[in-house]
């Protein structure tokens, strides 16, 4: 693998997709060959880039604003399609492949097992980052999953498909009997029979899946793969980011930085700002008084944000709130300026 990887994670609603797009756009503008990859079914990445392409498993190149020195591609992964590819890759023979793909429960399991979405994204990253086409690959993790679970997905996939529980279903004996009995009484015998068949079939993929998931795990832990935690300057996301960071440390994964999205401008905290605003609240003009009060209100909010952000350890970077919203690549390239340092060469590349 030659490309550097940045995996973007964080609590729900903080703007992971926007930050992924921002990192990608800014690095591409500065001269890197970049791929941004997502499994987000809501096509938010396409929206962030101002694109309306059909779902694409293969990278599509996006035109950079004038003056851009590198290149930018986007891949939006269809989890279901990626699963089919994975089964095809791992099945020992054509019969097994066909039987897995045609099983009644295959659709449900692949669609509902949210962890598998991150897993297939990581799996695709291994393929795409393997050649020398890209300098940097930015991975936007799925919005629905718990960020903590997403990095456990290789292990959880192994557990799920190689599980003793699966064997319990296939051959209920001994300690498994009460389970099979209860499951049967709850759900009916025919459902359990279908499920047993599914796991028998998937059992044929187990060896391949074990090796494959170990490759994914190895990639996630390697020094060329670094993580970005996205937060906002509010209490909830900040405490979630701290929990996530502790978890990543415990797993010895490489944290590149915490990116605080939608931060208020730092000038608000300047004592001179308060001084001027307070003086304005005594002005003879009522509108000026009101402007002073509005300034102080925003300053209060900035102070509260500052206290929350202070809890986050270094390294961290802030992306400022944009009053006009984010539209198109120009905005993304500009917003990404403070983040450029995070995209440049890091250890192991």
């Amino acid at each position, binding site marked *: 693998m030659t490309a550097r990887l940045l995996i973007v994670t964080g*609590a*729900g*609603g*903080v703007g992971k997709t926007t930050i992924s797009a921002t990192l990608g756009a800014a690095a591409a503008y500065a001269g890197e060959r970049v791929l941004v990859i997502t499994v987000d079914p809501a096509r*938010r990445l396409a929206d962030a880039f101002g694109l309306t392409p059909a779902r694409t498993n293969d990278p599509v190149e996006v035109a950079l604003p004038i003056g851009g020195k590198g290149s930018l591609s986007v891949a939006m992964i269809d989890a279901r399609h990626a699963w089919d590819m994975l089964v095809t890759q791992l099945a020992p023979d054509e019969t097994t492949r066909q039987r897995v793909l045609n099983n009644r*429960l295959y659709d*449900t*399991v692949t669609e*509902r*097992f949210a962890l598998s979405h991150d897993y297939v994204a990581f799996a695709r990253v291994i393929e795409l980052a393997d050649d020398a086409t890209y300098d940097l690959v930015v991975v936007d993790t799925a919005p*629905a999953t718990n960020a903590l679970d997403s990095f456990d997905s290789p292990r959880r996939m192994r557990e*799920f498909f190689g*599980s003793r*529980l699966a064997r319990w*279903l296939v051959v209920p004996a001994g300690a498994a009997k*009460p*389970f099979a*009995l*209860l*499951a049967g*009484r*709850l*759900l*009916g015998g*025919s*459902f359990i029979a279908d*499920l047993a068949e*599914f796991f028998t079939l998937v059992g044929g993929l187990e060896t391949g899946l074990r090796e494959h998931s170990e490759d994914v795990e190895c990639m996630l832990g390697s020094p060329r793969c670094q993580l970005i935690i996205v937060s906002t300057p509010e209490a*909830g*996301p900040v405490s979630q980011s701290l929990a996530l960071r502790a978890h990543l440390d415990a797993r010895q994964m490489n944290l590149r930085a915490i990116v605080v999205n939608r931060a*208020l*401008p730092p*000038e*608000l905290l300047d004592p*001179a*700002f308060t*001084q*001027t*605003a307070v003086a*304005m609240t005594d002005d003879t*003009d*009522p*509108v*000026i008084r*009101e*402007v*002073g*009060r*509005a*300034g102080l*209100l*925003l*300053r*209060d*909010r900035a102070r*509260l944000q500052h206290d929350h952000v202070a809890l986050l350890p270094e390294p961290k970077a802030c992306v400022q*709130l944009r*009053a*006009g*919203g984010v539209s198109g690549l120009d905005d993304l390239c500009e917003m990404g300026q403070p983040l450029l340092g995070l995209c440049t060469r890091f250890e192991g590349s």
Partner: protein
Amino acid sequence: MLVVTGKGGVGKTTVAVALATAAASRGRRVLVCETDRSGALAQACGVPRLRYDATPVPGGFSALTIDTESSLAEYVKRYLRIPWVGRIGPVARALDFVAVAAPGVREVLTIGKPCFEVRSKKWDLVIVDAPATGHVVALLDAPRAIQQLTPAGPLASQTGWISDILAQTGAVIVTTPEELPVTETLELLQSLARRTAVTVDAVIVNRLAPEPFTRRDLERFDDLRRSAQPPGVEQVFHAAGLLVAIRRIALTELSRLPVSPPRLVVPEFVGTDSASVVHEVTAAIVADT
């Protein structure tokens, strides 16, 4: 029964607790149920932790937290009369595993608990602090999913009375005046109408920033801003302009919401502890109803 849902991080739990406090203050017997075991409900209620059985909390109502394991144990004890309930732990974990392949199993065990509380007639109002938009439809659609999956299974025969309660259930969608929460609210309104019998009673817009200026002030604001100002004053004008822009974006997002169901707006509160925020939100909701 009232289901409170919305995108993650918009303040669902705070609104659920505020609604409970408001109803309790009018003499209703109220129960709030947490469905995701996040512990957020305990925090908003001001207690260290909640249990699977209803516990009275300081707001004058009761609260509980649902976990599928206890729910399964209760179900097994009540309906299947299987004696080895003491060993439910590993079996529940195994069922959790089966639930991945069986849509509706985990959900029906989760929604079954508040429905059971409704049926017990111990409460005038049961509020469900439901999971985020992405999962709530699966929760409310669980009885039908079970019927489809295992029409002959014993669990399926138990879903009838749950469906009856869900048909009389109301929902409140909490959103903030931002792009993604509003988009998810619109999507949720559609899928709730299409796939469930639940009626959406209101959309609660949480954390709307205050309007800093009147329209006439704003005209003068632009004039004053254009006239020469010392750099410090210009910065304050810039900040006030940012506040106006934030409010304008919020209003644009709100205008995307439909006229019906009715909208209830809760202003933004800068508070440091959850008790004071719940207090303010309760006051805002009571004032508006």
